[in-house]
């Protein structure tokens, strides 16, 4: 294309370009121009083609011209924004682009200028800022303050809100240094200093969240924004805003804090906590829940609620859990007690709830699952139930009238059946009852006094006080009460009332019965006692007290048998006690002999019955003893009598045999001699036989005499006894025997005290002394003169006369059994008749005495005659 020529075709084409475009040749003359360019620069009425730019725009800046020349010299494209004042003085802002115009060979032949009118945009932007500032000025609520800095005047202007934010008075005059110094030292101040610098040098705006320290020293958070204003590359100043966001920051901080807090609570809570989405998928689960079942977060998060580990029988409850999730997702709060498995597969009860979480629009966004272990709670609740039941039972069954009242209002809330019984009010009537209508003020006691005690001590009583029945009558009762406070702070008063009239009546009755029983057992002719496990008597009756020799009943307490009885009796009794208590079988009617410490012997008929406790074990025994000593004594007397009788009977039989023997022997002799006589022819022999018959007859007479004597003794068993001076009797016998004694050179040693008296049948004593003293001399040892010693002794209540000789002695082994037999003689003595000792013995026994003997052949004998002094 030719330089400086106008190609009509090109010209036409360029004319229609939608952009303001002009082609300028190297002489800076306009070659082509688009209509848009012409119109935008108001050149319609001017000829522009062929004219230089200086001609068209007389006040063009040199810098522009330089820019264009630079492009022509191959310096590349340049752009700029320019402001023009039109003929009317209106500002026009243009965005310029100067591009090189190349010919076909690529040589630069000119510049293509493209301009864009950005005046409106510039103005719009300025308007916006102005609007914003206006808005900010007015919006105190948002607390956005504005400022502007005029770089030319070096003037910083703060609006009122900005001043308020800085907490300075409204007439405060800031400058750029002081303004920066309000920023908190450190990050905030550095940041703002750099931002301002960059804005002035590089034209960059800023928008930072920074801290200010106000004039009053308060630290606040602001969003500080600002931008530089240039005009024609000239820095005109800065405009900016402040927004106080302290509260936001604080609330944000708070939110962060809360979030952190929530997380820590979430994780460290003793509750199992999880968050589910609406489909029941775990979004989050806390550590407690994981630790409980020894799970990892990945085992749970992302899984379905019903597929989680801790359901005991997942197959059975899966549908139920799905329903629960669905319901919660629908906005319902689901809660129930369930059981879950812990890490050891053991079942643990849990109070479980699933709650919907709503957003601001009341829409359910997620679900909060919570579980609380209630193992202890369940146990405690069970216990509570039991104790509640017990309490109920106690309350209902108690024989004491109990009511529960509201302490402050006096309303009766509850009564038990004993209350109804005692006061006549039924359950349906208590609603109208007041405490003070039951418990009247009396002279002795006012309700206020009770209240005073209650508030101080929490309890009162037992106090003797009156109560009013339904029918208006009053009665004495023992009152006690206890004040309790419910969780809700309500004060309740438990009052127990025991009807004293009844109690006193029963007490009296019991006492009477006790007295009766006591009188009864005390007057029983039996010894009654109760012993504990250690055989200590804990209760005794009068008879036993007397027996033990104690005056007060309580003296028996803590005493054992060994305090009263001898060791053997204690031992036997203890063995019996143990037998009874160990076998739980009573001993009934056993005859026992008990010896007291003083040696007194008592025979008892004893029964011991075990006392069996509720546990089935013995806790002691009841003993009942009957003193049968008298009975025993009588029994013994009877036995003695029987033995005496049987001895006598034996003696009688023996006597009968003796009689029969003796009579028979004589009659046999008669019979024999008579038979001889009948057949005898020789007269001499006949005479001899008759002589013998006469002898036999004499013998028979003598025998009969002897028998008579014995019979006399035996039949006069109960001859009257008299006290007789023994020494005198002995002397008399000695006197009678003096010739006999002298003949035998006998010596009598009499050691009997002169005042000794014996209770005897006097005639028998004569006979006895005569016989023994005669025998002692008669059976003397031929080698020595007889010495007879008489002495007296006491033995077992008998007076014992001992007669000792130095005679032949008797072989008691051989003859002991026959010693006192009738017609028994033991020595070859022609005077022995075998009747003396027999009679003597009968006489001694007739006086309830006895004879014992000791003897040694060749040395002598001692006969001991026991005189029974009693009867």
């Amino acid at each position, binding site marked *: 294309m030719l330089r400086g020529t106008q190609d009509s075709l090109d010209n036409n084409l360029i004319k229609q370009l939608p952009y303001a475009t002009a082609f300028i040749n190297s002489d800076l003359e306009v070659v082509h121009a688009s209509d848009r360019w012409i119109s935008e620069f108001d050149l319609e009425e001017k000829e522009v083609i062929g004219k230089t730019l200086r001609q068209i725009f007389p006040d063009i800046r040199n810098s522009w011209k330089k820019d264009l020349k630079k492009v022509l010299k191959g310096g590349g494209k340049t752009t700029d924004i320019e402001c023009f004042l039109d003929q009317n003085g209106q500002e026009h802002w243009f965005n310029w682009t100067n591009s090189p115009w190349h010919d076909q060979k690529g040589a630069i032949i000119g510049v293509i200028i493209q301009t864009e009118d950005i005046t409106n945009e510039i103005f719009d932007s300025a308007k916006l800022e102005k609007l914003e500032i206006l808005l900010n000025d007015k919006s105190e609520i948002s607390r956005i303050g504005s400022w502007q800095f005029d770089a030319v005047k070096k003037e910083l202007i703060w609006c009122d809100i900005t001043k308020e934010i800085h907490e300075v008075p409204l007439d405060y005059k800031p400058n750029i240094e002081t303004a920066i110094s309000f920023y908190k030292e450190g990050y905030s101040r550095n940041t703002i200093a750099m931002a301002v610098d960059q804005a002035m040098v590089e034209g960059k705006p800023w928008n930072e969240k920074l801290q200010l320290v106000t004039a009053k020293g308060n630290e606040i958070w602001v969003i500080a924004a600002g931008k530089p204003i240039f005009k024609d590359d000239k820095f005109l100043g800065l405009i900016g805003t402040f927004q106080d966001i302290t509260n936001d920051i604080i609330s944000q901080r708070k939110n962060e804090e809360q979030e952190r807090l929530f997380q820590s609570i979430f994780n460290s809570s003793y509750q199992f906590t999880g968050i589910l989405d609406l489909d029941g998928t775990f979004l989050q689960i806390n550590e407690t829940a994981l630790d409980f079942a020894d799970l990892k977060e990945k085992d749970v998060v992302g899984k379905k609620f019903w597929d989680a580990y801790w359901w005991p029988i997942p197959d059975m409850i899966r549908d139920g859990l799905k329903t629960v999730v669905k319901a919660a997702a629908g906005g319902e709060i689901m809660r129930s007690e369930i059981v879950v498995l812990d890490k050891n597969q053991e079942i643990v009860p849990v109070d479980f709830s699933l709650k919907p979480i709503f957003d601001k629009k009341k829409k359910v966004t997620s679900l909060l699952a919570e579980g609380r272990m209630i193992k202890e709670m369940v146990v405690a609740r069970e216990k509570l139930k039991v104790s509640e039941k017990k309490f109920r039972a106690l309350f209902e069954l108690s024989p004491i009238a109990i009511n529960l009242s509201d302490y402050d209002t006096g309303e009766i809330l509850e009564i038990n059946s004993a209350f109804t019984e005692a006061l006549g009010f039924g359950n349906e009537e208590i609603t109208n009852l007041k405490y003070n209508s039951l418990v009247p003020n009396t002279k002795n006691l006012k309700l206020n006094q009770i209240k005073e005690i209650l508030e101080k001590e929490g309890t009162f009583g037992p106090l003797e006080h009156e109560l009013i029945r339904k029918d208006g009558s009053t009665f004495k009762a023992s009152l006690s009460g206890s004040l309790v406070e419910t969780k809700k702070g309500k004060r309740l008063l438990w009052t127990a009332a025991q009807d004293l009239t009844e109690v006193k009546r029963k007490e009296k009755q019991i006492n009477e019965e006790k007295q009766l029983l006591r009188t009864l057992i005390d007057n029983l002719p039996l010894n009654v006692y109760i012993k504990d496990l250690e055989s200590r008597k804990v209760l005794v009756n009068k008879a036993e007290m007397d027996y033990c020799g104690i005056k007060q009943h309580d003296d028996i307490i803590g005493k054992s048998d060994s305090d009263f009885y001898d060791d053997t009796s204690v031992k036997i009794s203890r063995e019996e006690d143990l037998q009874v208590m160990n076998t739980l079988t009573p001993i009934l009617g056993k005859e026992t002999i008990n010896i007291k410490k003083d040696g007194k012997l008592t025979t008892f008929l004893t029964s011991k019955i075990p006392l069996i406790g509720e546990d089935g074990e013995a806790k002691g025994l009841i003993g009942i003893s009957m003193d049968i000593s008298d009975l025993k004594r009588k029994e013994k007397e009877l036995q003695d009598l029987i033995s005496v009788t049987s001895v006598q009977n034996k003696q009688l039989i023996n006597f009968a045999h003796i009689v029969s*023997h003796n009579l*028979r*022997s004589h009659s*046999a002799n008669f019979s024999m001699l008579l*038979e*001889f006589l009948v057949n005898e022819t020789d007269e001499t022999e006949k005479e001899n036989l008759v002589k013998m018959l006469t002898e036999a007859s004499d013998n028979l007479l003598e025998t009969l005499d002897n028998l008579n004597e014995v019979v006399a003794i035996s039949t006069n068993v109960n001859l009257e006894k008299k006290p007789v001076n023994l020494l005198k009797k002995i002397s008399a016998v000695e006197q009678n025997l003096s010739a006999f004694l002298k003949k035998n050179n006998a010596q009598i040693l009499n050691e009997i005290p002169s005042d000794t008296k014996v209770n005897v049948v006097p005639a028998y004593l004569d006979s006895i002394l005569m016989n023994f003293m005669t025998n002692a001399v008669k059976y003397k040892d031929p080698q020595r003169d007889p010495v007879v010693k008489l002495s007296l002794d006491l033995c077992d209540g008998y007076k014992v006369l001992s007669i000792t000789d130095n005679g032949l002695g008797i072989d008691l082994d051989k003859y002991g059994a*026959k010693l006192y037999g009738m017609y028994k003689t033991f020595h*070859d003595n022609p005077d022995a008749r075998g009747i003396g000792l027999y009679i003597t013995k009968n006489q001694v026994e007739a006086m309830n005495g006895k004879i014992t003997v000791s003897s040694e052949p060749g040395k002598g004998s001692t006969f001991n005659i026991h005189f029974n002094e009693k009867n």
Partner: protein
Amino acid sequence: MNLERDRHLIFISMKKIRAISIIDDDPITVFGIKKMLSSIEASEHITTYPNGKEAIDGIRLSLENGSGVPEVIFLDINMPIMDGWQFLEEFIALPLKERIRINIVTSSIDPADKQNWECYKEKTHHLLDYKNKPIRRSDILEITRVA
């Protein structure tokens, strides 16, 4: 009156009885037995003892000097010093081969005595007989035979 029969019996029985002992404290009984024995001429040697003691001493003595023991003994029970039973106790203890006839002659009807007799009968090889007094002539022949 019974003399003819008695003689005849004596004739039959009269093996010579070497010696007879009568032990009794009653002289009339001794007299009677002796008289009855002499009437049947039972033995040349009849010894009497007043009690058991003298009897056992006598028999021991004759044993020692070889004059032999009596073949028939009449024994009373109730005697002084040593009674019949005591004698019997010592007698059966003697080392005798011969069987001696011992006639217990007593007036006792005490059953105890009869029991004693039964008891001693079992204890000895000698012949023990028990007769109540009085001994009749008619009995004497029968009980005066060598056992």
